[in-house]
Each structure stands twice: as structure tokens, then as C-alpha cells.
């Protein structure tokens, strides 16, 4: 046997680049060790360890932001602005998910300590996905992300819906992974390499067979990644899985899996940009379908988790438009707007799903629209935050969602993808219907159930909601630095990253309300806020400041709320179980 090939120096390793992933993964291990030996009743030590680990990982990412780009570990890991920002988003998503998870899991009677290590490993998998150009690493990252998510989706073991969600996600996910792997194998067959930059080199050979292999390979990979990002022909799993999984898992899944999948899609499509003549028309059709179909279906839904599931599919479509605009003319249009959209989307998603955990009582969750009737009376703060997040999802000015959609619309027009821009604008209008349905449930409709759901808001949940709200409002101030950093024009402009934007909540809130349009772009405003929809949208946008003075009221009412929930708990239990 010839073993000479192994007599090579081991690859030089830049540990700093790998550090964030290592930190998150080993925090997961430590959390698992604590889970093994913890006193049985509490997860507090696990949560604090995880939060500290995530904080250190975020710090190590932020400190790298001035560093030069490059890859290490024999091309396995990559550091560039997009990878750093996306990794930071993933770490932030995990961080905020942990804050509101514990109270919810206790309320649902599934306080398993295993949730935290699983979520940490899932995050680590996502971080690997967005920071590599090696296809094998991409696949491993995807599997680490997904397998943890399969387990977490089935965490509510006594519920058939949760089990259904886990098995659906697992079967379809395994199917999609197979597609991705076949695609990778075909690309490897065509290029003899697993590195994405080899695709361009192989394409330049202009060999008929190689080109066919490449097209099939990239096509299969798009199917696999399209499944993870829930693009339309591959989206059917999403609403069921989102509805069945425990709400905190759904929030994590909707935010982290999407960010990671879009990040991987960006790498793959950038590597295969020479073949864009083949996949661009296809992806334009997919983008149109992904924006339109879920928006139409969501109008019929009565369950808020399901509505948000469809909304997250539609958002994947908007993100795809930004990605396609970048790939249509890579020199002219950068990836900044897409990344900015992802940041804003992740903040809103986590905030929104955190609020949905509010109604969980006695092992049941309350995520039907009717469960939110009269939320304004029970939880003024929650209702206010909900309005803010919905405003950002619709894309009402001064929220992050507005600038994100505006940027993508702008990019699409500049790249010559006017059709996509028009479809995006129309869909923003359609989506108002069901988004405002959620607000209607919270504000307009009267409470219908005889005994109202309790009205305490756990501190972790309150922190998550407020931090995400501050992020949604404050992110518009970071628009310019993010863009400058990502486009590589001025690395020093990066002073204060969005994930740590929770430093001065009150300060940010007040400044954003006094200065309604910090980054005005008047030419495009009417196109996005849409004809006919803008005037009715204005009142909700003004609600967040209203929510501020009401912060005391949950505390005032918490005494009677505790009594109420104790009184209603056992009495209300037999009725739903029948």
C-alpha cells in the first residue's frame, strides 16, 4: 500500500477563524454535561452557561470583523464579512431563543435540559454552513443543523402534533439531504473538487459532459437547499412542522434554519454564477411562486403559528429576490441588502414567536387567532410589541423590515428584475391582510372565552420582546455601517453590531420616535408601502411608544393574575382535554 500521500504537513490552521464555531459547539457539550449531573428540578445553570458561551462566541465574531478575509483549514472554513455577520445573526437568534424558552417549556410541561445543547449544536451547524465554500463542510453543517432540529421538533412527546411535525420534518429532510448529496457528488464528478470555486474553472473547460454534470449537480443542490429554506415547490412541510413543533423551537427553526440555508444558497449560487443562464430563469419563477402562493394561503389560516409559517415562506421569496438581484449583476449590486433583510427578519421572527409563547398554559399552547382576542387588555406591552413586529413584517417605515424590503426592491429594479420587484410590491400588499388580522385579534376583537388566559409576562420573555423591538427599530441606524462593512468600502465604519443593540433600550426607542426617517430614500417609499395600504398602516406604526408607559401594568396585575391562573388552571383543564 502506498502511504506516501499521507507524508504531508498537516494543514495550517487559523484557530481564530474557527473559534466561534468551536466555542458554540463546546458550550453545547458543557451544557449537556451539566444536564447529566444537574439537580433534577432546574435548568438555570444550563441556561446561564449557554448564554455566557454564546456571548463569548459573539464577542469573538465581533473582534474578527476588522480582520482580512480568507480561508483556512485547507479551504474548509472561510472568513469574510458576510460569513461573520450571518454567524453573528445565528448566535443572536440562539441567545434570544434561550431567554424566553425556559418559562414556555415549563408551562408546556416539557422542561427538558436537552433542548439547550441541541439548540447550541444546531447553531454551530448553521455557523458552519454560512462560513464555508467546501461542499462537504456545507453538507455536514446542514446535517448538524437539521438533526438537532428534528429532535427538537418532536420534543413535546405526549402530543401527536409534535410527533407528526418531527416525523414529517425528518422524512422530508432526509430526502432533501439525499438530493443535496447527489448534487455534491455530481459536482465532484464534474470538477474533481469539493471546493465551490472549482465549478467556474470546470465550466471554463467548455466540455459538453462536464457542463451537463454541473447543471444536474447544481440543480440537485438547489433542491436540497430550497427545501431547507422552504422555497415554494419544496415548502409543503413548513406549515405543518411550524405548527406542530413547540413554539420556541419553531421560532428558532424559522430564524436560524432560514438564515443558514440562505447563506449556503448564496455560496452555492455565487460559485455557480457562470451557469446563471441556466438557473436564473428557473429561480425567477421559484421566487415568484415563493412570494405569491404562501401569501394567498395564509389569508385563509386561523392559527397564528401557521400564518407565521406561511409568512416565513413568503419572506424566503423576498430574500431570494435580493439574492437573485445580486447574482444578476454581482459587480453592481452587493449582498448587503439580503444580509440586512436576514438580520431584520431574524429579529422579528424571534420576537414574534416569543410573544406567541405567552398563551401557553398547563401543557397546552394557545396559538389560535381567537386565543389572542383581547390581548390588549391582558398584556398591553405584548400587544404593543406585536404591533411593532407586524409593522416590520409588513414593511412600515422606521422599522427594520421597511428598509430591508426597500433595499431589496431597489436592488431588483437596478438589476433589471423589474418583474420580481412588481411581484414583491403586490405581495407586500396582500400580506397586509393576514398580518393585520393578527393585530385585529389582539386589539379589536373582544375576549370570547369565559375565563381569560393568565396575564403574567415572564421576565425572560419580556426581555426578548423588548430587545427584539429595540433591534427592529434601532437596526435602521446600523443600515449604513452594515452596508459599508459588507461591501468592503470602509471596514472602520463598523462600530456597533446589531446583535448587541440591546445596550440602551430607552435611548434607542426615544430617538427613533423623534426621528421618524433616519435614512430617507423618498424616491422609493411610495412603491413599497403601496397604493391604498399606507394610510391604514400608519396607526399601528405609532403604537410602540404607546406601549412604553404600560410596562408597569403587567406588574400591577401580576398579583391577581397569579390568583386567577391558579383558580382557572384546574377548572379549565378538563374542558380542552375533551
Amino acid at each position, binding site marked *: 500500500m502506498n*502511504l506516501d500521500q*499521507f507524508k504531508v*504537513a*498537516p494543514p495550517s490552521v487559523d484557530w481564530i477563524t474557527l473559534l466561534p464555531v468551536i466555542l458554540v459547539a463546546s458550550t453545547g457539550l458543557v451544557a*449537556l454535561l451539566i444536564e*447529566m449531573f444537574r439537580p433534577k428540578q432546574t435548568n438555570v445553570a444550563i441556561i446561564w452557561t449557554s448564554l455566557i458561551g454564546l456571548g463569548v462566541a459573539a464577542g469573538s465574531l465581533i473582534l474578527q470583523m476588522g480582520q482580512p478575509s480568507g480561508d483556512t483549514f485547507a479551504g474548509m472554513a472561510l472568513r469574510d464579512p458576510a460569513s461573520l455577520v450571518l454567524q453573528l445573526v445565528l448566535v443572536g437568534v440562539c441567545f434570544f431563543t434561550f431567554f424566553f424558552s425556559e418559562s414556555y417549556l415549563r408551562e408546556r*410541561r416539557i422542561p427538558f435540559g436537552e433542548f439547550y445543547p441541541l439548540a447550541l449544536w444546531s447553531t454551530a451547524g448553521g455557523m458552519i454552513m454560512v462560513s464555508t465554500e467546501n461542499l462537504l463542510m456545507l453538507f455536514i453543517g446542514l446535517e448538524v443543523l437539521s438533526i438537532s432540529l428534528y429532535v427538537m421538533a418532536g420534543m413535546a*412527546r405526549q402530543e401527536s402534533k409534535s410527533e407528526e411535525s418531527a416525523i414529517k420534518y425528518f422524512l422530508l429532510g432526509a430526502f432533501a439531504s439525499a438530493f443535496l448529496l447527489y448534487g455534491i457528488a455530481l459536482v465532484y464528478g464534474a470538477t474533481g473538487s469539493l471546493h465551490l470555486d472549482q465549478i467556474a474553472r470546470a465550466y471554463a473547460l467548455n466540455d459538453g459532459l462536464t457542463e451537463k454534470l454541473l447543471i444536474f449537480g447544481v440543480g440537485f443542490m438547489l433542491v436540497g437547499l430550497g427545501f431547507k429554506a422552504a422555497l415554494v415547490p419544496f415548502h409543503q412541510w413548513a406549515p405543518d412542522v411550524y405548527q406542530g413543533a413547540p413554539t420556541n423551537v419553531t421560532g428558532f427553526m424559522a430564524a436560524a434554519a432560514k438564515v443558514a440555508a440562505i447563506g449556503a444558497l448564496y455560496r452555492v449560487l455565487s460559485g455557480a454564477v457562470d451557469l446563471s443562464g441556466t438557473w436564473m430563469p428557473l429561480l425567477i419563477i421559484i421566487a415568484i411562486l415563493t412570494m405569491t402562493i404562501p401569501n394567498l394561503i395564509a389569508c385563509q389560516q386561523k392559527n397564528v403559528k401557521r400564518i407565521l409559517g406561511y409568512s416565513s415562506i413568503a419572506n424566503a421569496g423576498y430574500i431570494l429576490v435580493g439574492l437573485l438581484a445580486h447574482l444578476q449583476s454581482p459587480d453592481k449590486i452587493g449582498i448587503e441588502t439580503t444580509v440586512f433583510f436576514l438580520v431584520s427578519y431574524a429579529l422579528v421572527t424571534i420576537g414574534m414567536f416569543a410573544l406567541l409563547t405567552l398563551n401557553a398554559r398547563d401543557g397546552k399552547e394557545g396559538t389560535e387567532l381567537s386565543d389572542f382576542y383581547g390581548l390588549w387588555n391582558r398584556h398591553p406591552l405584548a400587544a404593543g410589541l406585536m404591533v411593532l413586529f407586524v409593522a416590520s413584517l409588513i414593511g412600515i417605515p422606521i422599522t427594520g423590515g421597511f428598509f430591508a424590503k426597500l433595499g431589496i426592491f431597489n436592488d431588483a429594479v437596478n438589476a433589471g428584475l423589474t418583474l420580481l420587484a412588481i411581484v414583491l410590491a403586490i405581495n407586500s400588499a396582500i400580506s397586509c391582510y393576514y398580518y393585520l388580522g393578527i393585530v385585529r385579534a389582539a386589539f379589536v376583537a373582544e375576549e370570547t372565552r369565559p375565563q381569560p388566559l393568565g396575564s403574567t409576562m415572564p421576565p425572560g420573555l419580556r426581555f426578548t420582546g423588548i430587545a427584539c423591538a429595540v433591534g427592529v427599530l434601532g437596526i435602521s441606524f446600523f443600515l449604513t455601517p452594515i452596508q459599508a462593512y459588507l461591501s468592503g468600502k470602509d471596514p472602520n465604519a463598523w462600530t456597533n453590531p446589531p446583535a448587541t443593540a440591546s445596550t440602551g433600550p430607552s435611548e434607542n426607542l426615544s430617538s427613533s420616535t423623534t426621528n421618524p426617517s433616519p435614512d430617507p430614500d423618498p424616491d422609493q417609499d411610495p412603491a413599497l408601502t403601496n397604493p391604498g395600504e399606507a394610510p391604514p398602516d400608519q396607526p399601528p406604526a405609532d403604537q410602540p411608544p404607546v406601549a412604553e408607559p404600560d410596562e408597569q401594568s403587567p406588574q400591577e396585575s401580576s398579583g391577581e393574575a397569579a390568583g386567577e391562573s391558579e383558580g382557572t388552571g384546574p377548572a379549565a383543564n378538563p374542558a380542552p382535554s375533551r
Partner: protein
Amino acid sequence: MNGDMTPILILVGVAALLCAAMVTLSWVLGPKKQTPYKQAAYECGVAPSGSAMERFPIKFYLVAILFVLFDIEVVFLWSWLTIFKDADLPFQIFSFWAIMIYMALWIIGDAYVLKVNAIDWDETTSIAPEKLGLPEASFESEVRAAAGAPIGSPVAARGGQ
């Protein structure tokens, strides 16, 4: 397309035709005399009883999965050692630490499995009730009910859900 593949394609075609012909012809031409004994399921001469859709404990799958983990570990160690003994020093040092990290992860996972009693066959006595997905109040009665019932009956299977 490729001339040297044509014989294989022809072989595949002939094989498919032959199989289809044999199955179809015996089905069409053969005599059909149905008797109750012929139609009964064959279970090694024992009279069949019960439904084939019976649920059986998930423990079997757990043991299988754990076996796969041990299996993969040996695959990695063997291939690594094959290279290790002839490699030069820097590679030996590097790969040694890589394998040590891998083994550490593996040992932590294994310790977790033992700690949560995942391979403890009678899980009703060892796992915390909330992890079985049972409400704590009715847990004792479930155990008592399960103790008297045979494995695979609905009550016992609930424990393995």
C-alpha cells in the same frame, strides 16, 4: 451513445422480460384452488395470532443506534491507525489530537447515554416520568398497569412512546 454499454443494456432488458414472463405466465396459466389453509399466513407451522401492526418497544431501535455509533468509531480508529504508524511526526501529532478530540466527544455522548439510562431495558423504573411524556400524577398507576401486561400490549407500549 457509448457502444461498450450496449450489451449490458440488452442483458438488463432480457432479464426484465424473462422475469416478467415467468411471473405473468404462471399467474395466468397456473391452476387456482383456494383453501383456507393456503390463504393463512405462514408462521413456521404455528397458528398465526394477533395483528401484524403491533407496536413494539423503541428500545430495540435505541440499541441498534448505539451499536452503529460503536461501529463507526471502530471504522474511524482502524483507518486512522493504518495511516498513523507510517506517517511522519507532524502528521502524527496533528492527527493524534484530532482523534483525541473525536474520542472525547464520543465518550461524553456515551456517558450521557449511560447517565440517562437509555439502554436500561425496563425504562419505567429508571426514567423521570416527564421524559416518558406521562403526567406525573398518573405515572404510578401506569407503571402498575404496565407491570401486569405483556410487552407490546397498548399499555406497556405507552411507556416506550
